[in-house]
């Protein structure tokens, strides 16, 4: 790559977004050196904060002209290093594009800019009895654009699906600055499911500048209960028995003793600490159905060996229970100076065995592992606890984290359920997928970004070229007739 003149780049980018929103000072760039994977830091050459699709396009044209790699960033809460800057590259920060553009409740659609905070979508429509279903634990600070990049989940995706199930149309700026509309706001689009290809593409194909999301009517009733168990085995068996009874809970979260200890210390929840595990569960739907399924689920929990089953007295207590669960990662500071979180997925029926293997993997390195996770869909969040001040402990934690991913792969699962591969887990993609699988996924990337300007070094374990596409292309009649263009 030719040497990039920072002055020239900065001048052109400042012209595109305004000097205030073009950041080149090393001290100012510090904020953007990492995302939620805070242990890894890279300073970009320059960061821009565009305010519109046109400004994003202008920035990408500048980057293209100077051969700069581009990394998109939302709120920077991602846990896989997906928004980790590339040295000498451009970081496009979408946080100023934070407007809700249109609400169409009869069609159950909301059009948003990518910097809109996840929870703000639900807040905007809550007065009408609607909400946006994907609910990552970071939902009060993470952005819809970041959710789209990572195909974020959350506790309630067990019943309602992930971000990809709730995004119907996108405006995307491609690497050359071209703006394309994908999907259809309120109907089945024609052709390939390009929205499905972009959601979860981890910033490797383009920059989303608008999204139309599907929103849901709030269910008539939600019942929550919290149950404690002697160990994660009984708690895991309880989850399997509830599912076997034909109940699809809205959410089933499991916390082991160590995670509960941290949560109790960090938040106001009053949970017993002499138990092995707990479940926090929501059942929702129509009133009559929920009354039936909730009491059935409670009976199953008791039969599965629950020590105690607790129902919240009111909405405030329910909110506190969920706040406890959603603060779990932040709470780890109360029991360990540092932690390393993983996001592997396993078949739900193997939770007990896998948790034992994970504990053993930790014990071999002399480290504790706390578990707080989406038990209903087998999406683990093992938190490997370590003290970075102790020489070698961080490296041992990374080794345990890597072994956890291998355990998940051995049990037929996945290395990530909702956090994404990013830079953190790219090295493990080659263990989950074969070379031809990765080559084929690279086809998708290359179809969008043949010069691989976006987010180099992420997702794929080794750099992959795009190569030329052989073969002549024949224009279709609808193109040559002028009914549609190739642009």
């Amino acid at each position: 790559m030719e040497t990039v003149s920072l002055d020239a780049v900065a001048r052109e980018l400042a012209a595109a977004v305004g000097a205030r929103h073009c950041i080149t000072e090393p001290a100012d760039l510090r904020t953007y050196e990492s995302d939620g994977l805070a242990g890894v830091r890279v300073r970009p050459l320059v960061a821009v904060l565009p305010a519109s699709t046109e400004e994003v396009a202008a920035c990408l044209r500048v980057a293209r002209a100077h051969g700069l790699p581009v990394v998109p960033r939302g709120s920077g809460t991602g846990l896989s290093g997906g928004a980790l800057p590339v040295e000498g590259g451009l970081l496009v920060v979408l946080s100023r594009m934070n407007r809700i553009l249109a609400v169409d409740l009869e069609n159950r659609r909301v059009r948003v800019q990518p910097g809109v905070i996840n929870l703000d979508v639900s807040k905007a429509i809550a007065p009408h009895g609607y909400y946006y279903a994907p609910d990552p634990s970071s939902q009060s600070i993470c952005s819809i654009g970041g959710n789209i990049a990572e195909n974020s989940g959350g506790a309630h995706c067990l019943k309602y699906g992930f971000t990809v199930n709730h995004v119907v149309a996108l405006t995307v700026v491609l690497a050359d600055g071209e703006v394309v509309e994908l999907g259809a706001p309120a109907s089945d689009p024609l052709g390939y499911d390009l929205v499905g290809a972009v959601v979860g593409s981890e910033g490797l194909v383009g920059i989303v500048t608008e999204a139309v999301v599907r929103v849901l009517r709030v269910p008539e009733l939600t019942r929550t209960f919290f149950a404690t168990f002697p160990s994660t085995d009984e708690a895991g068996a309880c989850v399997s028995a509830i599912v076997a009874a034909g109940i699809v809970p809205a959410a089933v979260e499991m916390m082991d003793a160590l995670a509960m200890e941290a949560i109790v210390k960090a938040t106001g929840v009053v949970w017993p600490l002499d138990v092995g595990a707990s479940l926090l569960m929501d059942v929702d739907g129509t009133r009559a159905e929920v009354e039936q399924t909730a009491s059935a689920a409670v009976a199953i929990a008791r039969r599965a060996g629950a020590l105690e089953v607790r129902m919240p007295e009111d909405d405030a207590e329910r909110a506190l229970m969920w706040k406890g669960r959603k603060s779990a990662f932040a709470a780890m500071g109360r029991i360990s100076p540092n932690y390393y979180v993983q996001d592997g997925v396993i078949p739900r029926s193997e939770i007990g065995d896998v948790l034992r293997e994970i504990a053993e993997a930790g014990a071999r390195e002399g480290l504790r592992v706390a578990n707080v996770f989406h038990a209903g869909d087998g999406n683990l969040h093992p938190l490997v606890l370590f003290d970075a001040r102790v020489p070698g402990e961080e490296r041992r934690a990374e080794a345990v984290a890597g072994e956890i991913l291998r355990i998940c792969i051995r049990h037929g699962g996945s290395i990530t359920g909702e956090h994404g591969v990013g830079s953190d887990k790219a090295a493990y993609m080659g263990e989950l997928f074969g070379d031809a699988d990765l080559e084929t996924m690279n086809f998708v990337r290359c179809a969008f970004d043949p010069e691989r300007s976006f987010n180099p070094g992420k997702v794929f374990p080794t750099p992959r070229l795009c190569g030329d596409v052989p073969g002549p292309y024949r224009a279709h009649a609808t193109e040559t007739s002028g009914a549609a263009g190739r642009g």
Partner: protein
Amino acid sequence: MKLVVRDVRAGGDGVLGTPAHAIVAPETLDEAAAALRGAAERGQSVAFLGGGTELGLGYPPRRVDLLLKTTRLARIVEHAPFDLVVEVEAGITLSMLQRALEPHGQRLALDPPHPELATVGGLVATNAFGPRRMRYGGLRDLIVGVSLLRADGVRVRGGGKVVKNVAGFDLPKLAVGSLGTLGMIATATFRLHPLPESATLLRVGGCDAAQVRRIARELLARQFEPAAFTAERTDGGYACAVLFEGFAQGVDDQAERFERLAADLGFATERPDDPGAAGLRDEAIRTRGDVRVRCSAPPAAFDLVERDVLAPLASALDEAAAVCYPAVGAAFLSAYLRDAERAAAAFARARAAVEALGGNLVLLDARDRDFARRVDVYGAVPGSFALMRNLKDRFDPSHRLNAGRFIGGL
């Protein structure tokens, strides 16, 4: 390797009038891969055939040197009942799959027409759906993994066998609706749902389009959770059906509440005995006629779809019938051709109207070549077509798979 190979002269087993020069019906995925490798070496064009229920969809392929029939690839690769996940080979029919799941109290919550013939691979390739999509989502919401045989015969996979999984690019989503143009769907993995303990179907007759829209709005406003809501178009009006599924207490309660809702709106409610597909009657309408059309439009535009699409098409065709899934925004019209020129003109006006609403109108059965040429199957390509072409170029660089059959001639 056992292959069933025979020469096919013109007609018969071809696709949309393009004759197939040879047919293979591999018994294993390895045999299918070998057939595709062989075709790649010889530069042959390949088309795929499952149950043949959607053979009328798309443009005629430019060539079919080899027609690969998937119906003998009908194994259940893995069913994990505790995890509510199943992986199947592409050639299994939906009915066969449902029969295998039923003893476990489970099903794939997908109810397109012709379950006894339609193969899973074909359903994925055509993004088929039925009325229960309202509650359970479409194929893109149910599929969690796929393996494809690429144009070069290499088998690749995306997704996995756990429902929650964001590792790698989403090949399953790309396979859905791709009409066999990116690769042969070899296996697909789905999330399953428990069979409902109870189901009740209710009917309301004599509605106009505005009233159908009103009922759809009230179902949402009053927090009903129906499995399906259909509106069957009859002469001059609509007969609505709403299906509740789930645990008995909730189903009974919703059925009673719906009767009250209907009464509030001035309608009498009927409870027919059979809550199955016959009760919903959508399949009969969707599988008849020589002109079959799908209209996709925003749910709130239901009365405009009636006025500008369904009514004019019905009057330009013979014996028209339509069934709509108002909450999904889909309507299927079937009829017989009387005057091709007049019908084509009505079709063009209807398409313009629905495109103005942000929707689309697709001719689902293009076997009447004269009519299909007059109206175009898909209409104008979307603005993102260049990206679709790029995808096709990467997956199938010499455009040999179902060559030219998909939108824009991909």
